[in-house]
């Protein structure tokens, strides 16, 4: 597994220019525009790095050789999640540093709402990666992008359908949302965190199953 991590960090190093552009844009977000978006922006970009390592592995039929190295398919999958975790930790560190800098410079103090917003953002990124990874492993880099768009589209459509259908089922969405947001912030965060953990576990199980079934 260590070899795989080294491989992915080396591939990441090859993308250092792209990384530089992200940092510059992140600084602009932090000090010129809205610093709240830092977490989503950096988080999304670093998640894309994780997904892109799968494209690099696939490039020029690289998979067969990769699996002749002393690794198992399960280890390969777990390494991708570990790499994603490292990317998310990096997101938190970079975003927090820039965010704090921006707060000090603008002389703004941190409110609990802001903290909840940041945590919710990071957890959303975790869930997004958890949805993207199995799709990318299943469909590969070309079809994977389409699959990700389709799945996100389906989620949006389901949301719209739910909003339309809810009144007919005598579900009052406004009061439902009000009651969710009136929950204690910590409980709300714990709820989102629990949801993220469930999504990640299902995602990992799916990814392992997908990779074990693959023939190269």
């Amino acid at each position: 597994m260590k070899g795989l991590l080294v491989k992915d960090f080396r591939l990441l190093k090859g993308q250092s220019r792209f990384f530089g552009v992200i940092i510059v844009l992140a600084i602009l977000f932090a000090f010129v525009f809205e610093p709240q978006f830092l977490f989503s922006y950096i988080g999304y970009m670093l998640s894309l790095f994780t997904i892109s390592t799968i494209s690099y592995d696939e490039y020029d039929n690289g998979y067969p050789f990769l699996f002749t190295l002393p690794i198992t398919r399960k280890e390969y999958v777990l390494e991708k999640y570990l790499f994603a975790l490292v990317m998310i930790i990096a997101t938190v560190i970079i975003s927090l540093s820039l965010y704090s800098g921006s707060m000090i410079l603008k002389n703004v103090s941190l409110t609990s709402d802001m903290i909840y917003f940041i945590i919710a953002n990071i957890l959303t990124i975790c869930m997004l990666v958890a949805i993207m990874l199995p799709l990318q492993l299943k469909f590969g880099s070309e079809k994977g992008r389409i699959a990700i768009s389709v799945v996100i589209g389906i989620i949006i459509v389901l949301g719209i359908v739910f909003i339309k259908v809810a009144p007919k089922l005598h579900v009052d969405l406004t009061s439902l949302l009000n009651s969710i947001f009136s929950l204690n912030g910590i409980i709300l965060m714990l709820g989102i965190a629990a949801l993220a953990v469930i999504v990640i576990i299902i995602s990992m199980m799916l990814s392992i199953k997908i990779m074990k079934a693959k023939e190269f």
Partner: protein
Amino acid sequence: MLKISNLQKKYPNFSLQCDLEIAPGEIVGLVGKNGAGKTTIFKACLGLINKDEGDIQFFDQQLSSKLKQDIGVVLADSSFSGYLTIKDILAILQSSYQQFQQTKFLEYCQRFELPLNKKIKDFSTGMKVKLKVIVALSHGAKLLILDEPTTGLDVLAREDILDLLRLFMMEDENRSILISSHIASDLEGLCDRLYMIDKGKIIFEETMDTLLNDYAILKVSESQYADLDKNYILKQQHTDFGYELLTKEKSYYLENFPQIVIEKANIDKVITMMVKGE
């Protein structure tokens, strides 16, 4: 070292059925035309495809990630991602293989003039092939599984690679190699034993000494054919001038039929006769 028993793999238009064994210290060649099933055997051995039936044992064990430490692999159409450099690969191998030999790896790279900081996707075909072989040779493997390791190389580079393989065998007498190649002369000068595969089945197995010393091609006219003892003829093929016949009893025909043309067999000729002959 490697034992494949009743390996079966079925595809819609192709099915493989194979038994194969490699002893310690042995170099075994696998030959056959394109699509005969060579790569399918390699992939099944390495767990890259699921087998339908059969058993594959390395060192009397099933393949595992621990066992892969002792196996060096070259695949014909797959290698490290082209976006990596040799320096990157060195770091990956160092973190993957317990017995990785950095000095040897760098020495081989230098010998074949491979740049350490250039992305592999920008390498020439020959450079890519050399790198694949170097990777397989640099982590103290006991068994090499090499699918077409000399494809795309010029004569001199091929000879260099074959020398490295001979050196690999000389360093430890218990090491083994399973190798496939389209270039029969590479195998003739290297292998101890040969398996021939056609349409997913092993159709021929012989030691290289026997193949080169005892096998022969008899070239006979129609009338010579009529008078010939055909008890030791394995395959025959009708030609413009008469018949070409494959035998394993070269000396018998040399002694008893001195008037006919008898040519020494080589791998290419034996493959042609075994596949196309009747």
